[in-house]
């Protein structure tokens, strides 16, 4: 069976499964729509959280980032897992005890202020929309390859599908669908990795394969071999390179960790379990399911990089026959050229492909002596690493089809979770909580679905004009959530004296500092040409890249909030009692409004 038919069958079957589950578990009440009725088993919830959490960025982009940034990309691995430790200990159990539907609702009640609630809604929407862009791009990339259409068309198809999918589900439908999506995506991710690890090292476990000796008879370890291959082509050494220095790495990791703990679509998952105790262990289960992918990703990235160079640099560097001839390029190369994500330009007209680092002056000198006139792989989009990986490793068609289905599962499950967070912020927090208190449950559900549609259109537009590759965009969302929501929640629980003035000032200061820094380097609302400082190292504050700035924003938030709270009156007694009450588990009921 040819690849296209196989892919249609596999992807079609998984979609039928999701739709079936979404239909079976469709939401009848707002309680089911927002928090799945609050009765999900902690392990099931952990698995759903895993799917919700592992987005197109994790599935599609992360291994690509690792492949090209080597050790430097560790910040994504640690940042996107370490946050669960914070979430499990600092937020989840307390917010579960509080027992409401949304994150802004907690902030509104804890800081006895609709103003605080509205600020939280704005922060939530900014972070979630930024995050959804990454998912849209992921959907577009996966579809464009799968249906062999332009990226834009792929994006439109993805938008339509997500729309149908997200409005049908509600949290109950989304949770059970995500469990199925987790299973699809984890098989899709690990099976090719196992094959590839076997091929290269003879060890079926990618986590061990990455630390093993190559089975090509060279006797070198895989990482040593990779270091050799990339440095010979003028790239930085794999196991030691950083993206923008060690301080940036430190701050970036911190931003992703606190952002993880501050992202509303993740936090809300812990409102769906029956007990406080379950909220704690469920975070652990979520991380187990996430760790399966996250410990595989470094192997996928490293091995893909090795395979890619081995495909192109077939012989000795500099020998006339050492490079792959363009005519002889493999089928996957042609497939990806069609999507525009892979581009070749024969700069020296020798009909062969030279792929090396032409930004490295020493390498350029060497390359000139070989008659090379610049790197000819003018575009290798990082996002294709995972999707093309099984093809590069010559794996059977069903594996490639499964990867397409897995990428779509990852993007769809996260998009659905985010859209739910956005729509519940609008329908539950803004409409029911502030502007139209008397709204009926039915009207509230309808409002939620309409706001979902609006969010998809905005995200789709931004997906067509993306501010970077998917994980880069997502990283900004983490910065925004980490700088605004995480400190407000933490202070709300751990600092009884925190009052509404402090919390509002802190959130506004934290998110403003972060956004200004991002806009200053990346353009206002990411529109190219409106940036007033170029996005490059020398312009960055202490060399910290915009994606990493959330941790600084969070520091500003904490400082401003505590200062303002100390200068203003302490919160009323009943709020201080509320804080006492959420600190102890006994008496947690179901989530209510």
């Amino acid at each position, binding site marked *: 069976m040819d690849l296209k038919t196989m892919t249609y069958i596999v992807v079609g079957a998984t979609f039928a499964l999701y739709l079936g589950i979404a239909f079976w578990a469709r939401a009848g009440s707002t309680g089911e729509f927002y928090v799945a009725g609050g009765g999900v088993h902690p392990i099931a919830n952990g698995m759903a959280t895993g799917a919700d959490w592992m987005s197109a960025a994790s599935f599609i982009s992360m291994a690509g980032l*690792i492949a090209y940034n080597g*050790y430097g990309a*560790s910040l994504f*691995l*640690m940042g996107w*897992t*370490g946050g*669960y*430790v*914070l979430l*499990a*200990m*600092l937020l989840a*159990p307390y917010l579960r005890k509080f027992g409401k539907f949304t994150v802004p609702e907690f902030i509104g009640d804890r800081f006895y202020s609709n103003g605080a609630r509205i600020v939280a809604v704005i922060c939530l929407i900014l972070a979630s929309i930024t995050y959804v862009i990454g998912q849209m791009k992921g959907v577009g990339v996966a579809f464009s390859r799968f249906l062999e259409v332009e990226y834009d068309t792929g994006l439109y198809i993805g938008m339509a599908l997500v729309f149908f999918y997200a409005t049908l589900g509600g949290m109950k439908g989304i949770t059970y669908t995500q469990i199925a999506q987790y299973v699809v995506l984890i098989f899709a991710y690990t099976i090719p990795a196992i094959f590839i690890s076997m091929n290269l090292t003879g060890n079926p476990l990618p*986590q*061990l394969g*990455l*630390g*093993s*000796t190559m089975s090509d008879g060279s006797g070198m*370890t*895989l*990482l*040593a071999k990779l270091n050799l291959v990339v440095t010979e082509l003028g790239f930085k050494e794999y*196991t*030691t390179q950083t993206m923008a220095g*060690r301080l940036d*790495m*430190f701050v970036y*990791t*911190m931003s992703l960790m606190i952002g993880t703990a501050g992202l509303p679509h993740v936090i809300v998952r812990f409102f769906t379990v029956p*007990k*406080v*105790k379950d909220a*704690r*262990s469920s*975070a*652990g289960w979520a*991380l*187990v399911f996430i*760790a399966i992918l*996250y*410990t595989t990703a*470094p192997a996928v990235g490293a091995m893909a990089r090795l395979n890619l160079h081995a495909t192109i640099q077939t012989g000795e560097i500099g020998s006339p026959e050492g490079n792959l001839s363009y005519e002889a390029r493999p089928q996957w190369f042609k497939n990806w050229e069609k999507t525009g994500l892979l581009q070749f330009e024969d700069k020296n007209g020798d009909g062969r492909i030279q792929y090396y680092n032409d930004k490295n002056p020493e390498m350029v000198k060497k390359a000139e002596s070989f008659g090379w006139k610049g790197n000819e792989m003018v575009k290798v989009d990082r996002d294709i690493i995972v999707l093309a990986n099984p093809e590069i490793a010559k794996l059977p068609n069903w594996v490639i089809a499964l990867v397409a289905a897995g990428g779509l599962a990852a993007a769809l499950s996260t998009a659905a979770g985010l859209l739910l967070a956005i729509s519940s912020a609008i329908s539950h927090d803004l409409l029911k909580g502030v502007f139209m208190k008397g709204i009926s449950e039915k009207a509230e559900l309808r409002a939620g679905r309409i706001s979902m549609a609006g969010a998809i259109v905005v995200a789709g537009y931004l997906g067509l004009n993306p501010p970077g590759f998917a994980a880069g965009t997502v990283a900004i969302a983490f910065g925004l959530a980490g700088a605004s929501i995480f400190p407000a929640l933490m202070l709300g629980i751990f600092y009884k004296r925190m009052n509404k003035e402090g919390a509002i000032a802190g959130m506004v200061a934290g998110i403003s500092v972060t956004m200004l820094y991002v806009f200053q380097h990346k353009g206002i609302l990411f529109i190219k040409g409106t940036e007033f400082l170029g996005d490059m190292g020398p312009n960055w504050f202490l060399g910290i890249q915009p994606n990493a700035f959330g941790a600084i924003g969070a520091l500003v938030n904490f400082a401003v909030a505590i200062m303002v709270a100390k200068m203003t009156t302490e919160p009323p007694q*009943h709020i201080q*009692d*509320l804080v*006492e*009450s959420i*600190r*102890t*588990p*006994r*008496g*947690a009921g179901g989530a209510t409004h």
Partner: protein
Amino acid sequence: MEKPQGSGDAYWRATLGLLTTVLIIWFVVSFGFGIILQPMLDSIMLGGYPLGFWFAQQGSIYIFVALIFFYAARMGQIDRDHDVHED
């Protein structure tokens, strides 16, 4: 809103004590071993892995998982000791 029974302060102190322990380990394995000390640790090999690199891309994640379950178990014990557990 029911108040915690009697030992509220002691319970909270025990909770914060546990949090501090876990957060120190969390920080040391990731920011410490994985980032700050990575160049030093890389001179030690763990199989084919330089040790600092291993902490950054594998080890810290395994330890995070263990930390959460450790926290959940210890916290359950603290809840029972101070009689604030559920059901």
